[in-house]
């Protein structure tokens, strides 16, 4: 199945390609816009949507939370949205991507469909958000969470970068 999100703008693709190729990652330029989009979407939920919507939905609880728990709340909102979104997307692609479904043993290892690339891009976008939260709030969460974010980003980038 072709990438349902659509291709990146040509200028972005051309700009990213030399860097991606030097990282052994020829599929990344096809999905870089989705990585950015996913990151911006999750950061938007964290910074604007959750702080605006949560006190409306939970007027008795959210405003009373201390700063640390409130931050944690926003992070959990992002996590909830991303886990629902990516599960639905993955299940949908597994059912409708016929090219993926017909892959042979070798194609499952070396083959590519745009739709599977989209799933990787969404995951990488989320873990970039996660990494940035861990860096910004390193004083609150400590170096362990930062380490966790780096390793998660690494594992989920395997298909793109390693």
């Amino acid at each position, binding site marked *: 199945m072709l990438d349902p999100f659509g291709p990146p703008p040509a200028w972005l693709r051309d700009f990213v390609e030399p860097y991606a190729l030097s990282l052994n990652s020829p599929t990344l330029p096809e999905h870089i816009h989705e990585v950015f989009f996913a990151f911006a979407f999750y950061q938007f939920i964290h910074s604007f949507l959750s702080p605006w919507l949560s006190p409306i939905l939970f007027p008795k609880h959210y405003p009373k939370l201390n700063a640390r728990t409130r931050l944690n709340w926003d992070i959990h909102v992002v996590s*909830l949205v991303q*886990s629902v979104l990516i599960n639905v997307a993955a299940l949908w692609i597994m059912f409708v991507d016929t090219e993926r479904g017909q892959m042979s043993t070798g194609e*499952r290892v070396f083959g590519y469909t745009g739709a599977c690339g989209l799933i990787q891009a969404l995951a990488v976008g989320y873990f970039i958000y996660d990494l940035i939260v861990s860096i910004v709030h390193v004083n609150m969460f400590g170096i362990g969470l930062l380490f966790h974010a780096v390793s998660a980003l690494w594992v989920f980038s*395997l*298909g793109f970068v390693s």
Partner: protein
Amino acid sequence: MILQRPFVNYYAPVFILYELSSPFLNIHWFLDKIEMTGSRTQWYNGMLLLSVFFCCRLVWGTWQSIMVYLDMWSALQQTWSAASSPLQTPVSVNANVFRPDSGNMCIDESCARANAEIARFKDFTATGVPTWLVVTYVTSNLILNFLNYFWFSKMVETVLKRFRTPDSSTGPGQKEKDQDGIVKEKLQENIPQDVILEAAAKLEEQEGGRGELGLTPEQISSAIDAGLGEELRRRRAELVAKVPLPGS
């Protein structure tokens, strides 16, 4: 330099499904924060959490891990036999990997494009798959699967422990919950409910509130809190066991 990707692109949506249990873990966390700890909602959510965790991480995860190992093993064999070819230039693995007829059955252009896309990056994978990449992948996969089994065993342990030791929630612990005015019917059916909730809390403590892999300081501090609670419960249970209560 010869480039190498894509690599097991097919399995991206497969292993993302480990995340299927994360929404329930998040909901468990939110219910704690909106003073619905021990509620019926949290109980149902906890049961869903445990069963989805078991299905997607242990059953589906193990099965698909074996599938990806088999696929990578066959790719490695192709790579090695191509590399040991007596010809001067290494043989491409592509002839064995990609079927030349794919796309022939298409009646429209987007279908043909989608079929051609499978082999779109074949020049980057012509030399096969490097052994170090397979080793890295299998190692990460094994660690993740080990953690899933470990977390699940922790939850099972929590459940079993509950049936072995005296139920402390009929002691002073129950009073606290009643003061919150949350669930009165807990008195009748508290054992299965508490067990599920404790197991869910155990996963939260082990896995981290967000359902991802790894240990975080936040998790450690919440584990300390949970540990304190557990210590208190244990002491209460011992006390209850030592002091025979009327009717017990």
